[in-house]
């Protein structure tokens, strides 16, 4: 009995040691975070040396551990004034590093200009706003808008609903990612991704996904989406869709085919079937729920505020439209037919339409 328990315990610990060996770095992190995770360090050594523990823990880099990237920290640190070493991103992200360096942007910005190594995130747990925010640090949004408006119709709308990297990298597999945005207080048309707190107040539940996913099956059905859109009315919120790539690459370039609107607008409704709904998480970042296939194409209430010309047209509406046109066409055809048959009955000049 006793022996059995011990063997179990030992094998469990061994298992943990192997599978979670990455976590072995964590106590090390703790040591550094004792100082770097305290807000007070800001006033001593500046904002940069403060590392937000909540954000850091959520990254994969937390598993990598401080020591992997800062492998030589002197024992007298920080007293001796010698700066700890820093790994370069290329050490671990070789392929991305190569791809990026070769790209048109390679000489314009370093990895760290776009990524805070202590707050890295997978693209799927970021909102579109957040990703575009990286570019906005250097590319003034207003100026970008002006430059793009020279050739891009409805530039503002495009910049609002597309990631910069959608057009400027070879990223692939586009989907529509929706998120809930709330109107900024005091403004008429400035919307920002709604925060977890805002949505929690709205849903009165811990799991704010249930705000839309009413039956909790982790899939947002079209019906649930419609109900939610009605629910949003008058709440100063809206459901906003952005076209985002599933696979992010760092091959920065000015893609010829993005000049040509048909890359997106002639992709046909089939390309627009897949969509997700992203919710902010309590601890930061986003999770997303899959949305029923075809929601983007729903005639009215699926996504009342998201419409992509040429690609998200609704088939039922097309049928109604076609019927109207056919009705119009059938009059000349029908009337003309009888007109032809009865032409002998009419002598010229006898009548007038």
């Amino acid at each position, binding site marked *: 009995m006793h022996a059995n328990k011990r063997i179990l315990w030992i094998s469990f610990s061994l298992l943990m040691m192997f599978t979670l060996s990455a976590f072995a770095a964590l106590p090390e992190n703790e040591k550094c975070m004792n100082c770097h995770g305290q807000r007070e360090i800001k006033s001593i050594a500046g904002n940069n040396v403060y590392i937000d523990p909540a954000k850091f823990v959520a990254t994969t880099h937390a598993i990598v551990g401080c020591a992997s990237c800062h492998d030589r920290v002197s024992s007298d640190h920080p007293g001796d004034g010698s700066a700890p070493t820093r790994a370069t991103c290329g050490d671990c992200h070789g392929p991305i590093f190569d791809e990026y360096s070769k790209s048109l942007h390679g000489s314009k910005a370093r990895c760290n200009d776009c990524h805070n190594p202590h707050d890295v995130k997978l693209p799927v747990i970021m909102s579109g706003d957040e990703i575009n925010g990286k570019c906005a640090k250097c590319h003034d949004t207003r100026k970008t808008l002006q430059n793009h408006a020279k050739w891009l119709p409805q530039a503002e709308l495009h910049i609002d609903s597309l990631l910069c990297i959608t057009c400027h990298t070879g990223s692939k597999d586009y989907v529509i990612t929706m998120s809930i945005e709330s109107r900024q207080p005091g403004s008429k048309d400035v919307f920002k991704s709604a925060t977890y707190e805002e949505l929690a107040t709205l849903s009165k539940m811990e799991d704010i996904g249930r705000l839309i996913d009413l039956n909790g099956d982790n899939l947002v059905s079209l019906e649930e989406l419609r109900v939610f859109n009605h629910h949003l009315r008058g709440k100063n919120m809206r459901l906003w869709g952005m076209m985002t790539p599933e696979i992010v690459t760092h091959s920065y370039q000015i893609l010829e085919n993005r000049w040509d609107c048909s890359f997106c607008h002639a992709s046909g409704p089939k390309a627009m079937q897949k969509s997700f709904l992203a919710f902010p998480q309590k601890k930061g970042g986003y999770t997303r729920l899959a949305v029923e296939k075809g929601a983007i194409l729903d005639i009215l209430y699926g996504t*009342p505020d998201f419409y992509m010309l040429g690609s998200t047209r609704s088939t039922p509406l097309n049928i109604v439209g076609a019927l109207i046109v056919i009705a119009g066409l059938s009059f000349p055809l029908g009337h003309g037919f009888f007109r032809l048959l009865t032409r002998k009955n009419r002598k010229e000049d006898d009548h007038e339409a």
Partner: protein
Amino acid sequence: MKHKEMVYMTPMPVRIWHWLNAFGIVTLCITGLQIRFPDYINIFGAYKAAIRLHNTAGVVVSISYMLWFIYYLVVAKSLLKLYVPTLEDLKSGILRQAYFYFLTYFVGKPNPHHSTPDSKFNPMQNAAYLVIMFILLPLVVLSGALLMYVAPLRELLLLLGGIKMLVGTHFLLACCFTAFLFVHIYLATLGHTPFAHFKPMWNGWEEETVEDTLPTKDK
């Protein structure tokens, strides 16, 4: 005996409006088709070209609509007289006209309506033009104008039920115009010769056959 007489039916501003409008609407229908179905229809080459042309034609149609409206309302002062049907028109005129188009026309009976510059349209035309010019055209112009400025007018669009509602309305209206065009052009060929109604729309003068005994109207 009968003799032919020329009547000045359609004043110059109306003709300018009409052909600008006709050309504009046809352009809008075709470019619109490419804009909605770019994966099937490519007439103007680049998608952007279709959009630019569509927007331009939309502006032309809006401006020419204003020309029409102001001319008839302010200069000719006959907007309401020509375009608003009388109670009599609604009660029996439309039926009488429909009866003609669908039945007695084939037998060879004359048109119950006689066009004069003061009463150009038969009751059916009257009703159709009223709907087209006072409801459908303003609506399509308005929805189109909103769609040209989606981002700045977002707030308004949300009030109107969102962009999908607007695009849907715009599309269905466009279908109505296409349907109207088929009927309209066809009906215009029902004069005493197929082109009898096109001539006054082009040079203003309509040729009429009048009984000698009838007093001729002042022009």
